[in-house]
């Protein structure tokens, strides 16, 4: 029944798959933070565990997801894309249609409500592509919270539209001109702000990264994606997908999708990392292809690093995937064999960006285009999955100018050569 909207609910997502008491998923996770943050993080954990078991909080969250975010987002069958790729059936979970244009709003809303519940008056956040920054600025405007967003100056240049959107929404955006001037450095600066202002400030971290409870909390706020997608797939197709696919930067959109399918052992869970220009130091952000276990920004996980333990430079055409560490739960899902991980290159992602526009009339975020690009690799497998569900985590308006520059570096004004 295509018309039957699935229930907008997060019931069953909260508390179902917790890490251990110290925040570990297997050997990954934990809480590696400066001493000043230990108590505020313990306070945050207690407040979160209390909120998620409070029906009033869940009701408030669920109601805003429906009436403010616009959930449930549709599940769209991409017939022309599938046929162009020689793939079987492809379903797109349309997180790009959520308010502000990406899945990021789910988590920003959940943590924003939590910040209000904790009596915080101010929020700090980092952003890479700008989507989390926009979502956070949006939620702060809605809830009446002061908002400061940190963003690497290189990312500010390549996502200028989102910088303007954040300022329009009343946020202060601070350029970070340190290190690689991208997401990692923005997180460092947001944590420095937080450590100085813990009494009245909540750090609204945007992905399933950082110290416990962030990886758990962010995944649970995002798990509505998979809850809906699973119910929609069953309702519309009478079966589960053979594989679900999502791009992985920190990994929150992927975990939000995977979570509902974890116990469906026949469903393959596939995360797609940014392969950049090549799998060589400094030219990609595929942590499982070029990384090793380490500790970065509060968590033990797979990290791109050198022999001395310094964090490696990264590159991706997509600012949202351009990060040296992966969420700890992904490291655990990979080590347990439950999820598999691949990477696609900048060039493949740019190609997929155009395929989707041409075949479905949907311009995806460059991050999400990585997931789309992987469909062609899946179609080439000896027994390809027949029904594949891809998380279209965000829309590509923010990337249009950067893609134009990529496709036509010198020839402004000419027709794009697609």
């Amino acid at each position, binding site marked *: 029944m295509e018309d039957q909207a699935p229930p907008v609910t997060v019931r069953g997502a909260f508390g179902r798959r917790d890490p251990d008491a*110290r925040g570990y998923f297997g050997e990954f996770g*934990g*809480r*590696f*933070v*400066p*001493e*000043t*943050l*230990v*108590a*505020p993080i313990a306070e945050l954990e207690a407040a979160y565990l209390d909120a998620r078991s409070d029906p009033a909080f869940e009701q408030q969250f669920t109601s805003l997801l429906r009436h403010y975010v616009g959930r449930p987002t549709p599940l769209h069958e991409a017939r022309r894309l599938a046929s162009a790729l020689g793939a079987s059936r492809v379903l797109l979970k349309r997180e790009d249609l959520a308010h502000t244009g990406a899945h990021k709003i789910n988590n920003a809303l959940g943590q924003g409500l939590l910040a209000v519940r904790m009596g915080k008056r101010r929020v700090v956040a980092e952003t890479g592509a700008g989507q989390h920054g926009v979502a956070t600025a949006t939620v702060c405007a809605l809830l009446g919270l002061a908002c400061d967003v940190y963003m690497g100056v290189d990312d500010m240049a390549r996502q200028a539209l989102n910088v303007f959107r954040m300022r329009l929404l009343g946020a202060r955006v601070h350029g970070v001109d*340190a*290190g690689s001037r991208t997401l*990692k*450095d923005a*997180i*460092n600066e947001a*944590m*420095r702000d937080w*450590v*100085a*202002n*813990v*009494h009245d400030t909540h750090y609204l971290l945007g992905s399933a990264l950082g110290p416990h409870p962030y990886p758990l909390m962010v995944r649970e706020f995002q798990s509505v994606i998979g809850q809906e997608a699973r119910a929609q797939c069953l309702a519309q197709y009478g079966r589960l997908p053979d594989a679900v696919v999502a791009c992985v930067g920190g990994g929150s959109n992927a975990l939000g999708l995977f979570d509902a399918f974890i116990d469906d052992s026949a469903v393959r869970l596939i995360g797609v990392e940014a392969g950049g220009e090549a799998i060589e130091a400094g030219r990609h952000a595929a942590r499982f292809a070029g990384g090793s276990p*380490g*500790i*970065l*920004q*509060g968590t*033990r996980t797979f*990290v791109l*690093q050198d*022999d*001395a*333990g*310094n*964090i490696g430079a990264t590159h991706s055409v997509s600012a949202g995937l351009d990060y040296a560490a992966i969420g700890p739960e992904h490291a655990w899902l990979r080590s347990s064999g439950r999820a598999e991980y691949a990477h696609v290159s900048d060039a493949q992602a740019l190609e997929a960006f155009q395929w989707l526009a041409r075949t479905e009339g949907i311009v995806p975020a460059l991050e999400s285009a990585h997931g789309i690009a992987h469909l062609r690799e899946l179609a080439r497998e000896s027994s390809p999955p027949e029904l594949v569900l891809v998380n279209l985590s965000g829309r590509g308006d923010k990337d249009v100018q950067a893609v134009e520059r990529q496709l036509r570096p010198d020839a402004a004004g000419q027709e794009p050569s697609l």
Partner: protein
Amino acid sequence: MRSRIRETFERLGAERRAGLVTYVTAGDPDLERSARVLGALDGAGADILEIGVPFSDPLADGPVIQRASERALASGTTLAATLEMVARERAAIRAPIVLFTYANPVVRVGLDRFAARASEAGVDGVLVLDLPVEEAGGLRAALEGVGLDTIFLLSPTTTPARIREAGRLGRGFLYAISRLGVTGARASLADGARDLVARIKRETALPVAVGFGLSTPEHVADVAQWADAAVVGSALVDVIGRWGQSDALVEHVEAFVRALRRGCAPRPLGGEQDGPR
């Protein structure tokens, strides 16, 4: 094994004065000049030398030490190179040496290998900024196995129960963070610092050093009234940043440290109620 750090605090007790702890980043501006700076600090009266291991992502540090870390990394300084420098300079230095580092370089080497190498190099204690007591069990065991002190940080936000835990697991001394926020020189001492030291003293007998924000001889003299040691980092790193390329580097470092050290004058007899114990 006798702890050189413990001996230093015993001597300070006998001299009736607080100690001066200095922080510099290894390899800033390069390892050769860094070695000369360590000699100068020791000679000018620093009682304990903290040596920072440069790291790509120093999220607990303010801009001054971030830039020092960048200069040190640019000069090719790693944890291994830092330990080699300590090994070369150890015999000429009287003061205990505390390695001040982030967790990742240490876990990259491996805890046991790190502990063995630090011990061979002549390091006396290790403080890891992003390894709170709950995560420090493995490192502490490895360091204890080779007779090195594990030093914990305590903050104004630390609960009494965790102060007790740090007092139980820590060795050498405890490092009290005077204020919320990252490292960096400030114009005045934080109001809550003295209260934090008093809270720590209620839970543990370990000596307490106070740092974060101290930048002048007056700050040191103030802290010296009610703590066992005062730590100066960013203000000293700033001196190195300004004079690092000059022949006068060592002179300027010595002059600054002598001035700081004057803040650690012996306490008058009979002033026990103001003393740390």
